[in-house]
């Protein structure tokens, strides 16, 4: 069985035209199950962040979050509905209302 390697990748995102900057968001956990990728996002900034869209491998995807607005020092779980394939790599971008992105990379995907 291949080993799943989950790597947090923070983008060197510049500040946007308003709202929060994505470089203060951090993905702290990730888990995969069939058809879903769940990320836990921590807002390390002093400003509220709003998650607007999610991109996986250059494609906007459906996602669910209990609350897309993440207050300072709070966390939010984001469930992406995506038909990932075991053993393949995925580049995920969490896009905030300012257009800034947090990048997160899943290598050698495996249910976990």
């Amino acid at each position, binding site marked *: 069985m291949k080993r799943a390697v989950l790597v947090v990748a923070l983008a060197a995102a*510049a500040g946007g035209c308003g709202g929060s900057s994505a470089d203060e968001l*951090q993905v*702290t956990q990730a888990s995969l199950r069939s058809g879903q990728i769940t990320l836990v996002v921590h807002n390390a900034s002093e400003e509220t962040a709003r998650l607007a869209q999610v991109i996986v491998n*250059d494609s906007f995807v*459906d996602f669910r979050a209990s609350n897309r607005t993440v207050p300072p020092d709070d966390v939010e779980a984001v469930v992406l509905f995506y038909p990932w394939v075991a053993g393949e790599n995925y580049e995920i971008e969490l896009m905030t209302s300012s257009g800034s992105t947090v990048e997160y990379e899943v290598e050698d995907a495996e249910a976990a």
Partner: protein
Amino acid sequence: MKVLRSTFTRRRALAAAASALGAGAVTRLASAAPPHHHDHSLVPGSAHSGFASGDGTVDPKVNGFDPTQMLRDFDHGTIRKIAGGRTLREWELVASDKEIEIAPGVKYAAWTYNGRVPGPTLRANEGDLLRIRFINAGTHPHTIHFHGIHPAAMDGTPGIGEDIGGGLIDVGEEFTYEFDARPFGFHVYHCHASPLAEHIAKGLYGAFIIDPPDGRPPADELLMVQNAFDPNFDEDNEVYAVNTVAFHFMYEPIAVRLDEPVRIYLANMVELDPVNSFHIPGNFFHRFPTGTSLEPTEYTDTVIQGQGQRDVLELRFPYTGRYMFHAHKSEFASLGWMGFFEVSA
């Protein structure tokens, strides 16, 4: 188009992961049940159309312009007859900075002509005299560069025509471009200030139609300007569209009539990617490159366009129902450049 910067990313990633995982934050997990139609916390694209297609569409009131209205919004200018029986058409275009919403929830600091992206669709007849008063109310020097045949001083190119007040138009300044409408065809206009890619990518462009002397056969005419945005400034586009708002026509299909002629004015104003494409599944169309001939050169279902390239496309829909249109570069389609026609009797 995304370019993976794996080395840089991975180095950043490992350090960040160690820090983040040590934070010990309390996790609030969302339900991981499959999506269904009435869950408002879920992006509803798949429930709506079978595609993940953004979170609905953007309220036109937010932007002050509507991609659907832009389809058939042709600005013929203020018209009056002048000596020799010629027609003079006049417009006023104002460059300004404006925050727009390019996908649901995603704001972008655009540069606009008349507060919209793309700018007004200017339309004239071949041989008309055109006069466009340009006012720069933005925060950077701009120009308007028209495609067409005209004197050099009217070309909107920095450093040319400055002796008569043209060239680069500084903040707070204005200039009036004046030239004859020729040749007939489908053209564009855009800012020509440096850095050029930035001035175009931020939204300073629009369509410019010159009708042939005897016009074209009647049809339901639609303007489609392919565009894209780089909201995180990484020199890669993340959001693609026709008439600016990603996935807009997935949620507001373009209404057309069964067997009625449809004419599409298709332009590609995407920066940062070398080519774009347009495909209609389940149908074929006649292609008139740049619209400068009344004879089509191709009968096809897909066209490829480089930056600034234009085509006039003519077709009829012989069946009722819903038909997609989209970039045949699948990445662009999945990042917003897709929509529907709704064909009704």
